[in-house]
C-alpha cells in the first residue's frame, strides 16, 4: 500500500501532509494524556506499536499471485482510537521510508493518511457499531482489523487514482485499476490480519482484562468469557 518515494506529484503529496501531520500531533497529545491518566497503559501502547511493526513487515502471498502486507493497525485502533494509531503508524512508515526505501519521505503524508488514519478510522467505526449491536467480541475484533486493513488499501487506490486519472475514463478508470492491484490482492491478507488480531486480543483479555475494562474496551462482564 506504500506509495513509493516521489510517486505523488504536487499538490497531492503536500495536501496529504497537511491532512496527516495535525492528526499525528493530536495522537501524540492523546498518547501523553492516556499514559498520564494510567501509566500501566504504557505496556499496551508498546504492544500495539510492536504489533504494527510485525504485521507491516510481513509480505504475504495473495490469491492474485502477487504479494502485499497487512497493516497491524486493528489492535491499536481498538485500544487507543485512530489518532494514536496514526502516531504509531507514522513511526513505522518513517522506519520503512528511511531504512527500506519502502514508501517514502515525500509520500509519508499520504501513507500515514491511508495506513494510519483513514483505514483505522473505518475499522474503528466498525468496532463501535459491532459493540452497539452486541456482536461477539472475537467477531468484532476480527471485523475491525480486517476492515481497517482493507480500507487502508482502498484509500491508497483512491489516492493514486486522483493523482493519476486515466486519459480516457478519468479517475474512475484508474481507481478500478489500482483497486484491483491493491484492494483485491488485500482480501485474503485482511482475513489473516483479522485472525491474528483475534489471537493477540484473546491473550490480552486473558492476561490484562483489568486494563481493557479500565480503558472501556470491554465491559467488566466480559473479563472471563473469551470464547
Amino acid at each position, binding site marked *: *500500500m506504500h506509495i513509493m*518515494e516521489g510517486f505523488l506529484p504536487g499538490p497531492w503529496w503536500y495536501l496529504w501532509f497537511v491532512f496527516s501531520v495535525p492528526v499525528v500531533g493530536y495522537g501524540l497529545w492523546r498518547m501523553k494524556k492516556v499514559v498520564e491518566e494510567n501509566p500501566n497503559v504504557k505496556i499496551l501502547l508498546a504492544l500495539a506499536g510492536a504489533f504494527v511493526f*510485525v504485521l507491516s513487515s510481513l509480505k504475504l502471498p495473495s490469491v492474485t499471485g502477487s504479494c*502485499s502486507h497487512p497493516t497491524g493497525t486493528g489492535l491499536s485502533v481498538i485500544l487507543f482510537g485512530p489518532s494514536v494509531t496514526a502516531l504509531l503508524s507514522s513511526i513505522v512508515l518513517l522506519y520503512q521510508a528511511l531504512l527500506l*526505501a519502502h514508501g517514502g519521505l515525500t509520500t509519508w503524508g499520504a501513507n500515514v493518511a491511508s495506513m494510519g488514519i483513514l483505514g483505522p478510522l473505518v475499522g474503528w467505526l466498525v468496532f463501535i457499531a459491532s459493540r452497539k449491536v452486541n456482536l461477539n467480541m472475537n467477531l468484532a475484533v476480527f471485523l475491525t482489523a480486517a476492515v481497517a486493513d482493507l480500507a487502508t488499501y482502498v484509500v491508497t487506490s483512491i489516492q493514486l487514482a486522483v493523482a*493519476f486519472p486515466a486519459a480516457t475514463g478519468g479517475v474512475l478508470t484508474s481507481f478500478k485499476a489500482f483497486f484491483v492491484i491493491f484492494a483485491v*490482492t488485500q482480501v*485474503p491478507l485482511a482475513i*489473516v490480519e483479522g485472525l491474528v488480531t483475534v489471537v493477540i486480543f484473546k491473550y490480552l483479555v486473558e492476561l490484562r482484562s483489568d486494563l481493557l475494562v479500565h480503558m472501556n474496551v470491554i465491559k467488566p462482564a466480559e473479563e472471563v468469557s473469551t*470464547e
Partner: protein
Amino acid sequence: MKTPIIFLLILVVLLVPFIINENAEWGGADAQAEVAISEFTGGTYEPWFSPIWEPPSGEIESLLFSLQAALGAIIVGYFIGYHKGKNSVEEVQAR
C-alpha cells in the same frame, strides 16, 4: 474459537494462493501500481524524488525487514510471557 483452530485457518488462507495460482510471480503489489501509473501517464511520469538511501541489495533489504519483525515480535512475546508468568505466580501465592 480456540487459538489452534485460528492458526490452522491462517495457514489455509496463506496456502490457497499457491494452489490456485501455481506459476505466479509473487511480485509486490507496489511494483504493479508503478506499472499502472506509467500506463495512465503514457510513460511520462518520472518520480520527482528518490529515496535518500536504499538497501544495497535484496539481502540487506530482507535483513532490515526481518529486523523490523524481530523488534516487534520481541515486545509481543515479552508482553505475553511476562503477564503469563506474573499471573501464575499470583495464583500460587493466593493459595
